């Protein structure tokens, strides 16, 4: 079993490089987020992992027409994945909209200027 897992790693070496680099990139990219943005960032990240919808579309699109289990589960997966993507981005936008109306008053504007 070890041997076949090792050869699995060798076959997917490129993807494994991407994984390792992405781990460090993800840490770097958000390491300086101010605490007011914690919840919107969580929500935005939530929408981004909705990219799993692509897998659901592939499952649905490859399901044989006579395999009802695959059709039904794939259909359900597409609905749930879309909910994740669409709902996630819309909720994040609403959270940040709230933010913008706050930062339009002069006080907080000067704050953002300071932080720059």
């Amino acid at each position, binding site marked *: 079993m070890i041997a076949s897992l090792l050869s699995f790693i060798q076959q997917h070496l490129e993807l494994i490089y991407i994984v390792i680099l992405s781990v460090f990139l993800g840490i770097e990219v958000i390491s300086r987020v101010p605490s007011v943005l914690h919840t919107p960032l969580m929500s935005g990240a939530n929408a981004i992992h909705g*990219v799993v919808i692509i897998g659901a579309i592939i499952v649905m699109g490859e399901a044989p027409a006579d395999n009802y289990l695959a059709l039904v589960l794939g259909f359900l997966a597409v609905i749930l994945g879309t909910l994740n993507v669409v709902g996630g981005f819309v909720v994040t936008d609403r959270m940040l909209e709230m933010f913008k109306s706050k930062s339009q008053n002069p006080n907080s504007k000067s704050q953002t200027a300071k932080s720059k």
Partner: protein
Amino acid sequence: WNFLPIIYLVGSVTFIIGLKMLSHPATARKGNLIAAGGMTLAILGTIFLYRHNGERLHNYGWIFAGLLIGGVIGVLAARKVKMTAMPEMVSLFNGMGGACAALISVVEFNHMISVPPEGGIISTVIKAITDTGPASLSGRTLIILLGLIIGTVSFAGSMIAWGKLNGRIRDFAFRGQHIVNLLVLGVSVVAAAYLVAAIDNHVQPELSAGLELRLQADGIVRWLFYLVLLLSVVYGVLFVMPIGGADMPVVISLLNSFTGVAAACGGFLYNNPVMLTGGILVGSAGTILTILMCRAMNRSLKNVLIGSFGGAKTGVA
């Protein structure tokens, strides 16, 4: 010439830029829109340009119906929700993503071990193998199981977190719960490892002998797979149940990064770089964000996750 890899590259870059912009107040909203644009592009590209062994996708009616239903409900739910109820909405959507990843694993597993009517060549398994060579089956099983376990835990946990935030579920803990938790997790990991080994043992010798593939362990293998699914649900519920309501945002953030990893499993399954980068980025950024949130609340992650058991103990005593 296929444009899909380029679309996926653009999608991955928009996710990185989107996350970066989301972490600055001035650019946050634009960052969200950029990531959303990249996502739309990746979804449309997959629907129209995806090819597997030269075959394009079918069942377009189902795909568009699913997108439409999910999209309409998603927009309505996200627009109607009160500002105060947003964290629980995030938890709900996160659970949907986890469930999506788990469903993909269920379908792909059944696809992998499916035994067609007698006499025929076992086309599905053969197809999976000729893609990347024989050894891929056990690796594939491992990835499918990882996606199943992480996605299901995230789904069950998010549902409990959602129920707690809107007051439908109250904190619940019993003595020695952390031992039960570890036991449940341990059993499902052992079952998963056994499954990978079983599929490896059954397939490899027959394949190398040039014989027709047939998974004789079909019955027990399928049974074990659903046992892992069940145990993951139980673990997800038990994991979130004892944690206090005030700590829920931290837990949701943690489950969020779980779902990211589950999505990345799909990236391995389909050799799909945009799923991989999107998922892993959320997985690592989400983990750091969880730690930052704890720090902002003056707590340690360990306290949030384990301290709850201590609190329960004093409650009992």
